[in-house]
């Protein structure tokens, strides 16, 4: 999901004092939460910093595809909703950076990792939003997939991450519902509007399935993360759940899921879906998706263009401080 990058790189386990490690795992098994000052294996800390940071970066970069439509939303109401949603994504990024910082990595360092291209964020935000229907599809599918992934994270063993996720999940439901409502409005509109909804589903379906990360057979870290209760379900389990929830919603809209192999498996009680094009996923992850360069360039520009504001605020605070202590010239 937001941590697809974790599935790619290998995280080495360090030699830790066996006794500490054993007690740590006991606490996890007993469903106790780990808090910032508690002892934890350094690989647990590293995994979490990377996972939470990637999640935070995803929220921040995730503002860009939707921000693209704020000035062109079809009504004032839709514009207000979209601004509120994008503002929420920024807020979610802030909660998550705050959680990552409790593990001892500064926010400046995390942001630097994003801007320098060393950090990963979810592959999904590297796809473009050419029509208004894409805003509907993002809310419905991308936020829908995010919720599927985030609800189990509310029970993550690391306290600050779990608390941030509870806050995020509470806010996320509106995102998905407003997206589905946009799709519904288009699907019930003119033939041209319905075609727009269909084209958006065609664009977002497969990238949304890829959001859950590599299939379990290729996911290197699932087992350890499950043992540490950072992860509660595997990528494939969550992906299947998403498909099962979403296919009936597409049917209700009267638009087709772009998968010729999609079928209901009566015995298994699941929708079976076709082969995912993992080479596309790898390409996007390696920086070669349709918008990777554009997204990073936009984040870098925003950071640079905001520099004078940060500097002015710092200078003003120093001046106020000097005045208060009577040291002003």
């Amino acid at each position: 999901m937001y941590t697809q990058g974790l599935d790619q790189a290998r995280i080495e386990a360090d030699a830790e004092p066996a006794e500490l490690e054993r007690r740590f795992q006991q606490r996890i098994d007993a469903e106790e939460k780990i808090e910032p000052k508690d002892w934890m294996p350094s690989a647990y800390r590293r995994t979490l910093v990377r996972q939470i940071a990637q999640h935070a970066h995803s929220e921040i970069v995730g503002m860009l595809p939707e921000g693209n439509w704020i000035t062109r939303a079809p009504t004032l109401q839709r514009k207000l909703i979209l601004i509120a949603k994008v503002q929420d994504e920024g807020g979610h990024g802030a909660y998550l950076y705050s959680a990552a910082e409790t593990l001892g990595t500064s926010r400046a360092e995390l942001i630097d990792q994003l801007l320098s291209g060393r950090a990963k964020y979810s592959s999904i935000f590297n796809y473009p939003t050419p029509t208004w229907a894409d805003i509907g599809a993002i809310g419905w599918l991308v936020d829908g997939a995010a919720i599927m992934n985030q609800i189990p994270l509310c029970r993550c063993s690391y306290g600050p991450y779990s608390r941030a996720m509870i806050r995020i999940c509470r806010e996320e439901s509106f995102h998905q519902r407003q997206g589905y409502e946009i799709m519904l409005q288009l699907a019930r509109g003119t033939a041209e509007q319905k075609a727009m909804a269909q084209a958006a589903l065609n664009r977002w379906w497969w990238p949304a399935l890829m959001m859950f990360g590599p299939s379990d057979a290729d996911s290197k870290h699932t087992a350890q993360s499950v043992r540490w209760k950072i992860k509660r379900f595997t990528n494939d389990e969550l992906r299947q759940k998403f498909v099962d929830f979403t296919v009936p919603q597409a049917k209700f809209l009267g638009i087709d899921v772009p998968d010729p192999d999609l079928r209901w498996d009566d015995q298994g009680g699941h929708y079976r879906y076709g082969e995912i094009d993992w080479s596309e996923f790898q390409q996007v992850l390696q920086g070669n998706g349709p918008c990777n360069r554009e997204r990073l360039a936009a984040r870098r520009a925003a950071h640079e263009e905001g520099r004078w504001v940060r500097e002015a605020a710092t200078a003003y605070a120093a001046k106020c401080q000097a005045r208060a202590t009577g040291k002003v010239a």
Partner: protein
Amino acid sequence: MTSEDWALFEVFIRARGGLDHKHVGSVHAVDAAMAIEHARDVYTRRQEGVSIWVVRSSEIAASDPGDADALFEPARDKVYRHPTFYQIPDEVETL
């Protein structure tokens, strides 16, 4: 202090009048006034609060988790501090 490493403030929100302020997370800011503005934008977009406290994270003193046993264990066997410890016949009312 450069603009890249503003101080960290912990944020506490009072959800409604009559409730305690509760820790919700943290923000970076140049000073307390800005920390309150950021906390308002980050933590109260849905009327989650009627009052905000911010305090520099560096000003918080905390107990060491390693001392938890020494600090809190002595209270464990003092069950007589709880009302349920005392056996009172049912006939005795309003006690």
